């Protein structure tokens, strides 16, 4: 697959990605395929806006596609298109999506089928296999290009780069979805633990980044690295944005609250210790108490 040379910039919204993955997961869990076979592929349409050279993909919906006969349910597609037009009058069908590891030859059929709706559709491919080593999103966007191969002009898929674009509302909802864990109702303890773990990792990351900056600035000061004024300007503007409360009252309040939190954790440790001690004493009493308990349990039916 070549990389695209059409010069179009693609912007993908996270809603599309969530939709595709949701569709795939639903189909996979409902159809219950045997474990060795790959999950069935899902298909759908992506819709959005195209302005000049920028293609922005906002939303997506599912399509009925019969993979045995390779036929697309046209009436369904049209009905859906009408519905979406009513809600989002600006959005056009920009292309289609599917799941899988790589684009296949059979996908060209689908691509050509959509060409009568949009003369240059895009193909969004999501790889549902989770690869922990891979840091990027497993989403690729393909365009179709006419190339002359062996004397025959053919349409082939060409990969294009894209950026992720979010609106504030999308960011909040995606964040929420990302934090959903399949826990047992999430008791207070696990929620607190999850919350604190999140904060802890955030602070750890912040700490390591500040350390890197600090080290860098130190080296610059010692003269090991040449001065880079733009970076220094950025750092100084960052520092100026820090909270500038230095008053006596702030210190007092801050220290008082800090001490309160420490006292609470001290109290928690105390309680923990007392409960361990209690268990220990019970065990010792059972094990080493020479006087049998008066009226103790006599275990008979």
């Amino acid at each position, binding site marked *: 697959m070549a990389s695209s040379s059409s010069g179009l910039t693609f912007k993908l919204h996270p809603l599309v990605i969530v939709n595709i993955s949701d569709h795939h997961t639903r189909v996979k869990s409902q159809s219950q395929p045997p474990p060795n076979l790959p999950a069935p592929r899902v298909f759908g349409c992506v819709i959005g806006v195209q302005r000049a050279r920028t293609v922005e993909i906002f939303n997506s919906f599912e399509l009925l596609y019969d993979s045995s006969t390779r036929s697309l349910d046209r009436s369904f597609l049209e009905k859906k298109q009408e519905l979406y037009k009513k809600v989002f009058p600006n959005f056009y069908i920009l292309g289609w999506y599917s799941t899988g590891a790589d684009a296949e030859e059979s996908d060209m059929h689908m691509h050509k089928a959509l060409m009568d709706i949009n003369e240059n559709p895009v193909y969004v491919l999501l790889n549902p296999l989770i690869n922990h080593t891979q840091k990027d999103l497993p989403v690729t966007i393909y365009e179709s290009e006419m190339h002359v191969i062996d004397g025959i002009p053919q349409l082939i898929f060409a990969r294009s780069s894209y950026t992720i674009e979010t609106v504030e509302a999308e960011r909040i909802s995606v964040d929420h979805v990302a934090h959903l864990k399949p826990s047992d109702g999430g008791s207070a303890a696990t929620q607190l633990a999850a919350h604190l773990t999140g904060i802890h990792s955030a602070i750890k990351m912040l700490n390591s980044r500040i350390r890197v900056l600090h080290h860098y600035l130190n080296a610059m000061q010692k003269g090991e690295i040449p001065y880079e004024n733009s970076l220094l300007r950025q750092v100084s503007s960052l520092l100026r944005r820090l909270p500038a409360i230095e008053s006596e009252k702030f*210190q*007092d309040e801050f*220290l*008082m609250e*800090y*001490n*309160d939190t*420490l*006292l609470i*954790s*001290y109290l928690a*440790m*105390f309680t*923990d*210790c007392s409960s*361990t*001690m209690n*268990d*220990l004493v019970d*065990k*010792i009493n*059972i*094990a*080493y108490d020479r006087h049998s308990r008066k009226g*103790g*349990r006599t*275990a*008979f*039916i």
Partner: protein
Amino acid sequence: MNLNVNSVDSLVTEIQGLSGSSQDVAHLNNLLKQSEDTIRSQAATFASCLTLLDPSVHSLGYLYILEACTAGPVPEAQANELILPVVRFIDVCNVEQIRLASDKFISVCKRLHELVMILNAPMRAVGPLLTAILKIQPSPEHLTPLHPDFLQVCLLAKCYKIGYSILEDDICEVDQPRDFFLYCYYGGMICTGQKRYAKALELFHNVVTAPMSTMNAIAVEAYKKYILVSLIHLRQFSANFPKYTSSVAQRNLKNFSQPYVELAISYSTGNISELKAYVQANQERFENGNNLGLVKQVVSSMYKRNIQKLTQTYLTLSLQDIANTANINTPKEAEMHVLEMIEDGEIYATINQKDGMVRFLEDPEQYKTCEMIEHIDSSIQRIMKLSKKLTTTDESLSCDPLYLSKVGRERQRFDFDDFDNVPQKFNL
């Protein structure tokens, strides 16, 4: 292979030869153990080979010979000579080699202790015994038989500070109960000498509530001092024993310390003159218990108790009224007492000298300072360590077969199958 103990030189060469690596030393240890009796019987002849051996390198061999030399009764004249090599040995000996024959080391140190007692020079043993304890302790939480000896020597030599340094470590492992009793008793006395009454109270409390099957004199003496220190420090004394005190102690301790209990009762009335009269009447008995000094301190703490009671009732009070209510003779004396207490941090007050009024204040601690953060932080660390210790003890007890058998026996049986031999199912 037996050691060749026939002549001094052969023994020396063997010891020197086998003091190289740790395996050699272990081997040497076994050999020495086998020839222990022969060494002991010929102790006099071997005394000369002490000079040939270097205690820092050949510690184990030196130790065996030294122990043999000091085992028999020593006349007073020779005691002095014998102390020097022992002291030197303790200073320079090698820790790993010593630990292989720890009981011998302990007996050597105990002999040192006896020798200095005979010579009536306890100061000489303070340093060596401290080094000895530090060397032989497997960890700072172990109690060795040397601890009470060391504390006793410190008490007699009046070196309270050094003794206190040993007391700062918390003890978690105890070998012999007698050591524990003595350690806590002497430790309590050292703390009282240093005026750290809180720790003294804790140590005496440990002695009184320690498990004991029969009455012992240490506990009785400790109980007497416990009453006195609690009166000085806490300004009150509760005669109820905590639940975990052994029944033996609960029944008998009060009988043995009758005058002290009565002292506590008269203290609680708050009447100074009555207290003084009682002390006067029983002075001899207090003296016999070597507690007269403490009793006098109890009397002087009575003033403080009365003043402290006043802080709970009044916001401001004149010095004259304080003198009257607290049975103090003059307002000047009352002012002096109040000033002392403010300096010690026992009460919070301001004295207005113009009109002779004292104003009692609240605790000004705002918990806003960085020192408070460090204080709480260190407390949290301590309690985390304690918690870890408790969980390990708890887990080890859960695996104890005695405990498991008892738990298994009394589990609920719902089924005929449950009546088989115990333990099979564990409801842990």
